[in-house]
């Protein structure tokens, strides 16, 4: 492994925060930028509003939004093609909620009319028939989930979901995690999120990278890896984040929604 040099630099783009910034997911871009700069990596964080060309970037963060603006965003991104070209060239793409849905083949509006997505992930979303999925979401990464290194699987992913989509993961993509609390993809298989290559989608708000810094570092590692292989990222002081994770896990346990506690207890000898 090599260390990120002082001259290495990253461009992180938050995609259309004016359209897809409803659920606080712009924080993902900030978390990535800070965690890179705290390690001495030069960073440019761009709030790439709609209505102008999308900049070329190493990491794109796409957040959740309302139905109408989500459709507008997908149309604009399809028309200009920058994001697909960048992804083809190895850029990292993180999509959350509506941002996850529009990475797929198609996604629904409030009347379940289907709209074309960006075709970056083999997923398809329809509108669910049941109640909107709203609440804490905890999901344990599957063996096929991405990991920073062979011995560094992701810890349980935590966050808050608020959506009415049902997302089916096709054979070209893999689910990220198995839900222990909440709904996630909602297709009946208990999965949450999907990924393939360097494209990662999830229903987790929070924002997801603030509550799951291992995932933030995984994405940074993807973006900083060179032809020599992945880079080593020095550990950061995550005291605040670990305290928050502990508090959220305890709150989910108290709420009685959870099977995660049993899952954890099952791990203990």
């Amino acid at each position, binding site marked *: 492994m090599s260390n990120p040099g002082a001259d290495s630099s990253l461009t992180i783009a938050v995609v259309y*925060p*004016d*359209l897809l*910034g*409803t*659920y*606080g*997911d*712009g*924080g993902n871009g*900030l*978390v990535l930028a*800070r965690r890179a700069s705290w390690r001495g990596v030069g960073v440019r964080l761009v709030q790439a*509003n*709609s*209505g102008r060309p999308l900049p070329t970037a190493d990491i794109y963060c796409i957040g959740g939004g*309302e*139905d*109408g*603006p989500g*459709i*507008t965003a997908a149309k604009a991104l399809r028309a200009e093609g920058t994001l697909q070209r960048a992804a083809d060239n190895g850029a990292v793409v993180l999509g959350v909620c509506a941002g996850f849905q529009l990475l797929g083949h198609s996604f629904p509006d*409030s009347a379940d009319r289907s709209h074309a997505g960006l075709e970056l992930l083999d997923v398809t979303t329809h509108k669910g028939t049941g109640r909107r999925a*709203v*609440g804490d979401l905890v999901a344990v990464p599957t063996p096929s989930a991405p990991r920073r290194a062979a011995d560094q699987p992701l810890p349980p992913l935590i966050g*808050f979901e*608020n959506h009415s989509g049902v997302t089916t993961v096709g054979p070209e993509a893999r689910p990220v995690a198995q839900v222990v609390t909440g709904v996630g993809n909602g297709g009946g298989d208990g999965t949450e999120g999907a990924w393939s290559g360097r494209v990662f989608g999830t229903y987790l*708000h*929070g*924002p997801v990278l*603030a*509550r799951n810094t291992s995932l933030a570092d995984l994405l940074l590692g993807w973006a900083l890896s060179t032809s020599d292989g992945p880079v080593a990222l020095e550990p950061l002081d995550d005291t*605040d*984040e670990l*305290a*928050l994770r502990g*508090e959220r896990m305890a709150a989910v346990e108290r709420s009685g929604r959870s099977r995660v506690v049993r899952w954890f207890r099952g791990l203990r000898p």
Partner: protein
Amino acid sequence: MTAPTSSPPQVLPARASVAVKALQLSNWLSRALGRGSGTVAGGRVGLALDPALLATLANGRRVALVSGTNGKTTTTRMLVAALSDEGGQPIASNDTGANMPAGHVAAMVESFGSPTAVLEVDEGYLGRVIEDTHPRVVVLLNLSRDQLDRISEVRMLAERWRAAMDGLRSPSGRTGPGTVVVANADDPMVAWAALAAPEVRWVGAGQVWHNDAVGCPACGGRIVFGDQGSWACDGCDFARPPCDAWIEGSVLVTADGSRHSLAIGLPGQFNRANAAMVAVAAPCMTDDGAPGGPGPRLSLPAVLDRIATLDQVQGRFASSMRNGHPVRLLLAKNPAGWVAIFDLLDESRPPDSPVVLSINARIADGLDTSWLWDVPFDRLAGRSVTATGDRRLDLAVRLHYAEVPCKVVPDPLAAVDRAIDMGSRGGVDSVPGADGGIDFLGNYTAFADFRKRI
């Protein structure tokens, strides 16, 4: 106040009468048992016994409704002050913030004989309350993201408001003057709704938060914001309507060219905006031809005079003493509200004055704390910051990434004591901040809890 030409029904239908008695009994029980102020409990009982109770109680009254994401309570309080005169009858108003129909019927029962009602209305209930109360005036302040797990997304709300406004064109079974809508022209979501109403007074009250209004609700195009509050869609002809009145700095200008100072007791530009809405709305309540008119038409300067003396609303903006130090209590519930409060801090405090931030995520606050990441907390750099409330750890992580150091203190009172202590040690004159005060900023239940304790 002259005698009203019509008044609320002194004799209620039997069912409503039973419902009112049950409401009063429930409220009395609720208060006696110490389970809160009782307005919501009684109101629910009353509405369960008579679902038409709100309509019955509103019949014959002149009603004003105030709705919007931010500023409802303050604006409602201002409108009550504007319409009150010495010796006049009390105005029915849900001044405790219980802003759904249960709170509305409780307020109407409380001030039973009052010919006038000024009601704060939850954004999601506006259509129903309009149908029940046949208001003379509806004030629409602003719409932005708030409690997304419980309240609809902004465009869904705007559509529902628009349907309610359209309903004003064909009021069922009513006579007399129609409804005047007083709408903030600077908020495209409000404008989209109000354009459907038959009679609108447009006020350029300002809206610093544009992040929920970029996607055009009419065509899906982009709304582009220009100078001096102008905005227009780049894909259709949806644009800022011509205003009947607008704010220039701290002056309210009307279309006839007259200028009125918005020198009011409540601080901040957002309160001057609320005052501007009231200055336009209150005279509409006293227009000639309105049933039960309280007499001569209120003039705009008279309205501003009457609201100038307000200096706190439900404890908001008020200072309490703690160990000899004034602690100002400020409420901010959502990103747009926090931005407005940060503007207020910059306007009223030295740049290093200490602040205590308290965040809860109970049902009334919204269960998801992701919105903290939409708040520009980096604006607090240079201040001593203490994080408290149920969700102080979410706040601490957010501040960490804003690179604003903070101290986490679980108990809000202890947090304030710590802030006072920090201020005392930091200040040359051994007082927190140059003007000796610290600020407590809380979201909804965090604010309410702290107010009770201090």
